[in-house]
């Protein structure tokens, strides 16, 4: 009795309940539907809801708690010698038993006690699943029959169904808040554990980042240093390069497209710019690592410059290409939002088009352009794949764009991909970095959104 089968059965039951209720409602008033309080389909939905919702709720609760309960039973029935192991060894053992029961590879040779425990686990699991199936089935039938017994021409079925639907709608709209809370809580809780091992000040103001923790106590350089300054510096350097590339190109494209370009040019160039926004970042990363970085290196060699093969310049340049559409499309919007009367007034005074743009339109659109700039910055700070593939790994406190630097996002990825020891300072550091990243981008976004909103009000 797999959960999928249970879901199918429950859905089939509620569909049956729906038709049943509809037919019953019509039969109650012998076909004169006008005498019902609600349309017949609402009586059907009423029964279907009573069928499905309680049964699904019970099933979900059951499936969440079943693994913990069966594991407890199995552990408590182990022989005394195994049961008295220290907690971490016991956890390992129960892991092995689970793997054994699933038929996976086990890290040690199985002894008879473990095989017995695994068999027992499988037995409890199958008993649990069958019991769940029976219980859910009974609840569904009971709910359906209860609802059916309540059917009467005066039952306010529509209002009840609509209340249920409304609750569902509200629950869905709360998911956005739950997600935010989930992000904040998970980041903060793990960060607190991290700051239990490394002080906040060292993290925020330390200038050395080398997160390797020791395998052996006497290892050289094993202490691990968690000073995030070099990461901020690297992130800022790459972001600055990206913005220096993207801001003029994006802004001038927006100006040209909104005030100079003919309808035809506009209809071709705008979608092409949008394509830049639609290309996956892993593609930009590959492009940066494989095409741009070697090209820059060669260019540097011919000019007598020493350009690292993972230079900040390559990553920043490609990231700049990626954020051009962010700046251009937002700036385009705000430039178009400047009222035509301002343009006409300026032209009437004899100003040329460029003078109108630089002296009238741009000042009027400046808050919006500033917001576009901020959103581009926040995209660049949070961008991951380009820097993971094209920027360096070693923390390097430098302002030289030809050298390799590393960023906050690169470090999060390198700390978390690979070994997963969840309580080492190394993995927890990733969450502290994530918290920082979240806070910085959130602050930038809030300012940007606020500016955009204020600006819209101004001209509406």
């Amino acid at each position, binding site marked *: 009795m797999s959960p999928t089968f249970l879901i199918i059965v429950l859905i089939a039951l509620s569909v049956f309940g729906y038709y049943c209720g509809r037919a019953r409602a019509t039969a109650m008033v012998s076909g004169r539907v006008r005498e019902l309080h609600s349309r017949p389909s609402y009586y059907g939905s009423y029964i279907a809801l009573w069928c499905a919702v309680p049964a699904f709720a019970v099933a979900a609760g059951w499936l969440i708690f079943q693994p913990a309960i069966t594991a407890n039973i199995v552990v408590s029935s182990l022989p005394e010698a195994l049961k008295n192991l220290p907690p971490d060894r016991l956890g390992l053992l129960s892991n092995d038993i689970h793997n054994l029961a699933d038929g996976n590879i086990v890290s040690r040779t199985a002894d008879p006690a473990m095989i017995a425990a695994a068999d027992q686990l499988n037995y409890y699991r199958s008993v649990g699943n069958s019991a769940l199936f029976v219980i859910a089935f009974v609840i569904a039938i009971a709910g359906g029959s209860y609802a059916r017994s309540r059917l009467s021409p005066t039952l306010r079925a*529509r209002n009840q169904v*609509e209340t249920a*639907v409304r609750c569902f*709608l509200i629950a*869905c*709209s709360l*998911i*956005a*808040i739950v997600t*935010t809370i*989930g*992000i904040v809580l998970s*980041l903060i*809780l793990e960060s607190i554990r991290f700051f239990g091992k490394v002080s906040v000040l060292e993290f925020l103001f330390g200038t050395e980042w080398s997160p390797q923790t020791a395998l052996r106590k006497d290892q050289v350089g094993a202490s691990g240093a968690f000073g995030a300054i070099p990461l901020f510096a690297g992130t800022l350097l790459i972001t600055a390069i990206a913005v220096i590339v993207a801001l003029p*190109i*994006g802004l*001038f*494209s927006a100006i*040209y497209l909104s005030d*100079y370009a003919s309808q035809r040019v506009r209809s071709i160039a705008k979608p*092409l*710019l949008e394509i*830049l926004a*639609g*290309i*996956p*970042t*892993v*593609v*930009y*990363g*590959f492009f940066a690592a*494989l*095409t741009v970085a070697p090209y820059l290196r060669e260019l540097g060699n011919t000019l007598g410059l020493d350009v690292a093969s993972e230079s900040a310049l390559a990553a920043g340049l490609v990231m700049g*290409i990626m954020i*051009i559409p962010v700046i251009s499309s937002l700036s385009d919007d705000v430039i178009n939002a400047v009222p035509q009367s301002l343009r006409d007034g300026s032209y009437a005074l004899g100003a*040329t*088009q*460029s003078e109108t743009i*630089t002296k009238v339109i741009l000042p009027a659109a400046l808050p919006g352009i500033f917001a576009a700039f901020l959103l581009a910055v*926040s*995209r660049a700070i*949070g*961008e*991951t*794949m380009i820097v993971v*593939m094209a920027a360096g790994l070693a923390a390097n406190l430098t302002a030289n764009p030809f050298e390799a630097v590393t960023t906050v*996002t690169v470090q*999060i*990825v390198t700390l*978390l*991909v690979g070994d997963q020891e969840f309580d080492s300072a190394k993995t927890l550091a990733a*969450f502290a970095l*994530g918290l920082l*990243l*979240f806070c910085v*981008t959130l602050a930038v*976004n*809030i300012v940007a*959104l606020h500016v955009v909103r204020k600006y819209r009000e101004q001209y509406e």
Partner: protein
Amino acid sequence: MSDISGSASIADTNESAKKQASDQIKRRYAAERRFKAYGVIAIVLAMSALVWLLASITFTGYQAFVQTYVKLDIQFETQTIDPQGTRNPQTLARANYAALYKGAIRDRFPEVKKRRDKRSLTRMISSGADLQLRDMVLADPSIIGTRQSVWLVASDEVDQFAKGAYDRKSPEADRPFKDKQIAWFDALVASDALEKQFNFPFFTSGTSREPELAGIWGAIVGSFWTMLVTLILSLPVGVAAAIYLQEFAPKNRWTDLIEVNINNLAAVPSIVFGLLGLAVFLNFFELPRSAPVVGGMVLALMTLPTIIIATRAALSAVPPSIREAALGVGASKQQMVTHHVLPLALPGILTGTIIGMARALGETAPLLMIGMVAFIVDIPDGPMTPSTVLPIQIFLWSDLPERAFVERTSAAILVLLAFLIAMNAIAILLRKKFERRW
């Protein structure tokens, strides 16, 4: 303007004023032209960046769609495959097929005698050739004991040489493909036993350590399961949330908070969603690592704001007269929404959903966090089996040193871009076909 000091100099000053004015106008027009040129340059730069990117990927990638094959006369010796003659599939599956193709290529070049040369000769054929022969035998056991000429996959070095990756005139030490191999290669070409064919295995097999055997089908199937979970979760929830906020929600502090929240979630870096998935789905709920179901859940949370924002825009584009007419004939508010507003807003909702899904399909960073980077050869058969997705396959291959993998990475990117272009094209068509203006 010019000051009038004396009548004699009026003409003079007029002249100079005119000149001054025309100079000024010239300057201003020049500035105008310059300014316009900046705009053109900006557009051209942006476009050329796009062209450079697409061109460089296409030029490295298109060759991976063909693959070099070598034709060998294989003697399917009974002695090697099935000495007892039982034709038992288990026996057949375990036989030493490598010996067959190795023997065949040594027979093709009987003059090769030295051990080292023999080894580099057999390395001309992909090490996956034995599986190819095994599948042939399992499909049709009657070929045992016969002699067949078979096109076998060449090794990646032969493939790269055939595609012109190594210059045969460069010094031997500089290239992995040595002079002897070039001689064998030429001999094979001369006897029409080496040619490039369309690379079907690239589209039908999972990944591999050997570039010539690596394919993207496993990643595509993984992407499919992930996207399916994302769609099933994010579309109903997103549309329901948007309906509530747009049609039912009272205007108060709470709904304001939800709105600000959604706008902010849309701008949260994707990697943060990955951290959320790692901390909540993997560590707290102990869901399986590397499974499409977890990836789909993370991507669904990421896509949700996009769908909500698009749905709200589509709903608000439906004119109020339709709502009022529905309410006027006695529909309840929910009936009005489900019977009238939602069907009219559907094209807009679908367009937004497709665009959101296209973004999710190209997303890599959050999936790295939840362990979808594992090396998985098998084709995933459901949302709970470990798998990888297309963008991550690209990321993994891009790290590998073999030249042939660079080519395959680019080809995988082309496939990914093709999917994205198709999805966006569908979205645009939907919008064009069903867009209504009231």
